[in-house]
């Protein structure tokens, strides 16, 4: 890219991630991206589960057993939280696409509420899932 010539003073760079103190909007934003990447991989797990259901009972029960194991449950807990967090973030983005909800103090509150709400809804979802069986 911009190679510095020998003897030339290196040009000033704009401050980067490591310089800034993490603020709520920044945290919510990067979590949105990370959860998106997680869901991308999680969709493959969903495909696998569906494929197993279409294959036969023995294979489905084996795959279902993996998802039902404690490590599988932790993975699914993370997956469901990621889904909820990403969806709230997505709705926020859609609203902000129209130019609304952009004031800086409000966006900070919104980011905090976003993270808190994602955790609360995940807990409620799992309570519902456990209540089913």
């Amino acid at each position: 890219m911009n190679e510095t010539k020998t003897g030339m003073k290196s040009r000033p760079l704009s401050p980067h991630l490591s310089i800034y103190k993490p603020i709520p909007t920044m945290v919510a934003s990067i979590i949105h991206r990370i959860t998106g990447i997680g869901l991308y991989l999680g969709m493959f797990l969903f495909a696998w589960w569906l494929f197993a259901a279409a294959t036969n009972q023995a294979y489905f029960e084996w795959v279902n057993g993996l998802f039902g194991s404690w490590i599988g449950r932790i993975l699914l807990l993370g997956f469901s939280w990621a889904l909820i967090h990403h969806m709230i973030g997505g709705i926020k983005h859609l609203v902000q696409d129209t130019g609304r909800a952009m004031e800086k103090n409000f966006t900070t509150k919104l980011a905090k509420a976003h993270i808190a709400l994602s955790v609360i809804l995940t807990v409620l979802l799992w309570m519902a899932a456990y209540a089913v069986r």
Partner: protein
Amino acid sequence: MTMRTPLSKVRGLGSAKDGTEHFWHQRLTAVANIPLVLIGLYLVVSLVGAPYDEVYQTLSSPLTAIFLFLFSLSVLAHMKLGMQVVIEDYVHGELNKVLLVMLNTFFVLFTGALILFAIFKLAFGA
């Protein structure tokens, strides 16, 4: 003075030749994903710990098959666009970037093939 022709202005496509299509499809699938994912969550939660016969019955019903078809198309399109942006943002080497964007397409198509095969097999029996 501008060197742009009136036609290029009207088309409004930049050097990438696809204008705002990526942005628009990202939003279109995002909106579609809201009801689809909510129904999907309901479906999965209702099948937690269910015996195989019940899972098979539910997944092979016409309405579920149609739902799963729409859900998969919208989610797969959305995640392909999203991952492409992540790659374009963080991978700077031209060759690596192009290879990863290709890999992204292949991964999404493979996952989609797996899902569509499963949906059709469940729905039409075999």
